[in-house]
């Protein structure tokens, strides 16, 4: 089998492990990719992400229950946590990012992957997870003074919450740039973000590395 076939095979096996609720099988696949940061990124982008998209599709067609979908998500996050010691970089860059999901948004796997990419690049990360109330995020940011705030959303109808969040954050933290992305923008809507100054929209997971390398504070 060539490299691409191996990836497809691992993705199918990972999906199957998640659907069966087998943490050990899912973890054994993850461990094959734990050898380097580049391998972990491939695992995230080409194994975990398509597996979770596939599981979402199975729910859409009523072939699995909500419980099975939630279990798959939870196992994926546990597997990612297990890789943490392979993710942290010894070369720290004295930069800090605060990451979280927009208020009412419950899908946090994608932004967790982004948090790990920042860690790989030596940033200190504060991963605040799903459904982050804006006032609490602002309070925490005023205390921690991050160089960047990254926000994620998966559901298009949450865009008004995101816009309100951007306005509120920029009022209190005008010098903190914002990074925005997520599945909500898969079919469009990213043009909305161009209305706001100091907000960078990233469409693709692969773009994050370039963004981090070229990052300049305001």
């Amino acid at each position, binding site marked *: 089998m060539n490299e691409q076939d191996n990836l497809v095979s691992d993705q199918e096996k990972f999906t*199957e492990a998640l*659907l069966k609720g087998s943490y050990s099988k899912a973890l054994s696949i993850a461990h094959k990719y734990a050898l380097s940061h580049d391998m972990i990124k491939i695992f995230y982008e080409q194994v975990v992400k398509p597996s979770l998209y596939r599981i979402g*599709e*199975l*729910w*859409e*067609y*009523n*072939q*699995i229950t909500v419980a099975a979908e939630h279990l798959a998500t939870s196992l994926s996050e546990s597997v990612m946590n297990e890789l943490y010691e392979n993710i942290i970089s010894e070369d720290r860059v004295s930069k800090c990012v605060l990451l979280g999901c927009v208020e009412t948004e419950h899908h946090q796997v994608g932004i967790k992957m982004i948090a790990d990419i920042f860690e790989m690049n030596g940033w200190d990360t504060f991963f605040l997870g799903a459904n982050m109330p804006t006032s609490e995020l602002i309070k925490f940011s005023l205390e921690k003074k991050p160089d960047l705030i990254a926000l994620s959303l998966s559901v*298009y*109808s*949450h*865009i*008004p919450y995101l816009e309100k969040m951007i306005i509120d954050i920029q009022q209190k933290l005008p010098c903190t740039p914002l990074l925005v992305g997520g599945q909500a923008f898969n*079919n*469009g*809507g990213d*043009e*909305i973000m161009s209305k706001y100054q100091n907000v960078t929209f990233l469409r693709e997971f692969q773009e994050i590395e370039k963004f981090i390398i070229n990052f300049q504070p305001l």
Partner: protein
Amino acid sequence: MNRNELIESASMLGPFNQEAVLEYTEKIDRLVVIMNETMASRPDVNELIGDNNLSMMKDNHANHARFIASVMQNFNSEVLVDTILWVFRAYRSRSFHSSYWAAQLNTWMTIFEKEFTRETYGEVRRLYRWMQVNIPSFVICSDEKLSENKSMHLTD
């Protein structure tokens, strides 16, 4: 109409008057309650949505309202069409009948006519009429993927 034709047709709907969007957003939570009560009290509700699907129907109404508010605020025809197709697939695969959408949209329109100003109703009506007229196309487009996926099975 196929997906691309639906997107092209929908592209003529926007943009929407922002005062109308504001009224829709401000009133919609209360209107969802009226919508749920009206639909749940229909004698044919089980024929429309299948057995034991009342809470799913109510979720759909709440999600519908949030989605329409956001799509009217920032209009994008591709997002509109793809989201409606997703809803048709997800709910039809759980026994919602295609007639449910006709009943749902008619009920929304009746409520809106009573509750909105004439100007807002005119704006909202444009979008809802387009959705009503295109129900058969959404059924056909979602049928294609539903039948493709009928043959999918999970490995044991």
